[in-house]
Each structure stands twice: as C-alpha cells, then as structure tokens.
C-alpha cells in the first residue's frame, strides 16, 4: 500500500532549485533508500516529509506531498502532529543531556500525553525493547544518555521516536558515524522495525542501500532520475546516469 506520494514536487532555497518535479510513491512498511551524490537533493527530499525544511529561510515549495492521502504541504497542516507521525533520525545521534529514561519519555512529555506512571514505564520498556536496548539498559535507566556508545545513542534516538508512535521513520545517514559492526546491528534493527513502520533512508553507502532497502531512488541535481525495486536498480538500472553513479563512473 502506498504511504507517501509526491506529485510535481519542486523546492527552491531562495534562487536555487533543490528539487525538480519529483514524482514518487513510497510503500507502507517498506524500506525506501534514496541515493545520489552530495548536493543532489536527497536530504532535502527526506526533510520535506516532515516539513523540516520550513526552518530554512527563503524556502519555497510547489506541488503536492500526500501522506495517507493528506497533503502535508497545506499551510493549515498541524506541524507538531506531522512531526510526531513522521520522526527523524540524524547522522550523528543526538540524545538530550538527560537520563536514558527521560530521553525516551521526552516526546510523551512535549506532546502532552498524560500518562500514568505505570504507562510511562511500559512505553519506556516497549520502546527500548523495540530497538533491542532493554536488556542492556534496563538497570541503567536513570544514568546519563551521554555515556552510551555511539550505536546505543543512535538506538536510543530511534526509541525516543518510537515512544510517540509514529508511522514513518526518516533516517538521514543513520550509520555514517558508526563502525561496521554497529552499522550491521542498526541495519538488523531497521529490518525488524519495517514490520511496523515505513522507513525512508538517505545514504551515501550504496552497499547499505542494496542490503536493506526494498525500493531505491537515485537522485541527481534535484531530479529523481530512477526509482524501482532495489534488486533491479542495482543489477540492471534503466538510466545511464544511475549506472554511472552506482558503478563509480560519475564525477
């Protein structure tokens, strides 16, 4: 089932057009990877899905982006509700300088979810279990999140999103600061999370895109050049520009 649809999506940063007529449908409970060289617009596209780009001065958008059939570019959209529904994981894990417990419940608090103490504990346990951190951290919940390893911090950031029950997880280079073992474990986590969440990942690591995603889109100079099943894009790309990029001939 389609979760996100963009139609003729254009985006300008002042005079610079960063997205050009992007038309794509992203499937629910699948992992979609967006690849492309630096500056191609892949992170910009990702940030459209929870309107993170709104914070950039001089930004202008045109076209339509539907999530569950609702146009999120509509000026009347509730941005807080949108960002609760569409969570984002960044390159470097960014836990708050609070305890592990407080990091997980932070979203509940800012979204004003009145919860009983038992419920809050249940959400913390569920969220940490879903990122496979519970067994490691259940006895350290009130220690600082800043003392965790990079991988644990990244998992905690994902748990923090999950606590507010989003539908979509956006991941912008989520493994770029991790070593290969930690990367492999985050990738395994993504495969587990796919059962319940629609995941969109931006990555420079083409092997990662090939390993974990169901669909892949290749972007160049703001254009979505090719989009298709990952196995097809990486074995038999239709567009020569995609072939040149994924075989390292681009540039």
């Amino acid at each position, binding site marked *: 089932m389609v979760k996100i649809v963009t139609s003729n999506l254009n985006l300008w940063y002042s005079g610079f057009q960063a997205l050009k007529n992007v038309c794509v449908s992203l499937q629910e409970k699948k992992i979609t990877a967006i690849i492309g060289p630096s500056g191609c617009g892949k992170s910009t596209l990702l940030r459209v899905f929870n309107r993170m780009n709104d914070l950039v001065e001089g930004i202008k958008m045109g076209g339509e982006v539907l999530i569950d059939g609702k146009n999120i570019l509509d000026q009347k959209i509730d941005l807080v509700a949108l960002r609760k529904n569409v969570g984002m994981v960044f390159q470097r894990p960014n836990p708050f300088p609070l305890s592990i417990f407080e990091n997980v419940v932070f979203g509940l608090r800012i979204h004003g979810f009145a919860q009983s103490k038992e419920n809050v504990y249940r959400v913390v346990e569920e969220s940490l279990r879903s990122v496979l951190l519970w067994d490691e951290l259940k006895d350290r919940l009130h220690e600082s999140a800043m003392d965790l390893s990079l991988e644990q911090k990244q998992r905690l950031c994902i748990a923090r999103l999950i606590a507010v029950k989003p539908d979509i997880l956006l991941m912008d280079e989520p493994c770029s600061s991790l070593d290969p073992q930690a990367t492999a474990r985050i990738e395994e986590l993504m495969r587990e999370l796919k059962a319940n969440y629609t995941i969109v990942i931006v990555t420079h690591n*083409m*092997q990662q895109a*090939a390993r974990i995603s169901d669909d892949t889109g290749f972007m160049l100079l703001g254009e979505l050049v090719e989009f298709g099943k990952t196995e097809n894009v*990486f*074995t*038999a*790309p239709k567009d020569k520009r*995609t*072939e040149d990029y*994924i*075989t*390292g*001939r*681009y*540039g």
Partner: protein
Amino acid sequence: MQRHFDDELKELLKDILKMAALTQESIFKSTEALKSRDRAQAQEVISHDNAIDELELAIDERCIDLIARYQPMAGDLRFISTGMKINADLERIADLSVDISERVLELVDKPLLKPLIDIPKLSVIAQNMVHDSIDAFVNKNVDLAKKVVLSDPEADKLRNLVQDELINDYMSVDPKTADRAVPLLLIARHLERICDHATNIAEDVVYLVEARVVKHHPEAL
C-alpha cells in the same frame, strides 16, 4: 571518471579470452585427431586439459576477488557473474574435447566403420558456435548471440542423424560393429553438448548486455 577497476576487468576479459582460445584449440584438435586418426594429437588434447583446469580456477579466483574488493553493481556485476558462468562453460567444453579424444584413442587402431561426413560437419557447427558466442561476449553483440542460440537445433538434428544412422544401418544390422559405432555415437553426443554450452554462453551474453534472462525462455529471445 577513470577507474582502476576497469583495468582489473580488462585483465579478467583477457583471461577469459585465453581460456576460450585454449578451449577452441581443444575442440579443433580432437576432431582433427579423429579425422586423421592421430593418436599423438588426441593425447595432446588430453594432456593440455590440466592447463585449462588451472586457468579456470584462476579466473574463478579473480572473479571472487573482484566481488570481494569492489562489490560491483549493475553492468560491472553482470560482467563478472557472466564471466564466471562462461568460464565454467568453457571448462566443460574442454572436458568434452578430452572425452572426444579418449574416444579417438579407442578407435585409432580399428578400421574406420564408415567415411566421416556428418561428425566433421557437427564439429564445424560446434566450433563456429563457440567462436561466435565468445565474439558476442567480447563485442557485446546481442544479434550474434541470438544467432548462436538459434543454430543449436541444427546441431541437435545432425546429432540425431548420426545416431540414427549408426544404430539402424550398423549396430542393428551387425552388432559386432558396436565397438566402433558406440565411440562415434558418443563423439556426436559430445559435440552436441559443446553446442549446448555455446548456447549457454550466448544466452548469458543477452543477460550481460540487456539484463534479460532468456535461458529456459526461448520465447524471450
């Protein structure tokens, strides 16, 4: 952008071409040994097979090494995976040439059962099919690859002709001819199998160039 990887792929292609040249020489010599009843030439094909086996292993190792170090994708991945399959087909073709040579050694001291007409014809078809399939691979020529695939039924037909003749005109009439007829029958079978391997190579070329699988799907050709 210039890629060191392209130099590595060229080296792989060179190795595959060397393998193809050695294999084609084996087919040619094994058939010549039959025609001229030349024991030494048949033995030469058999003794040279070790070098072909060694080269097959070296090519395989090179391909695995390239996959491990470069994690190739798209056309590069198709080239290496096709190269591995072609390598295996060429090695089997060389083995079949050895089989032909062994049959020649069985026949060489016996009087010829009949003049050799269709078997040399079949050998020419086999040699042309192998040559053209490799040519199609090197030049990424899908039309030539298709021509190879479409010529396989001709080889099957000729093999059946040889088989029917040997069984009906010789072995059924005089069972004592079996020790001279059976090796010829097997040689026809070996040559026809060589054509099958050339067909495999040609089908792989279509995959290499167009990313379409036509193996087991003749309608997709």
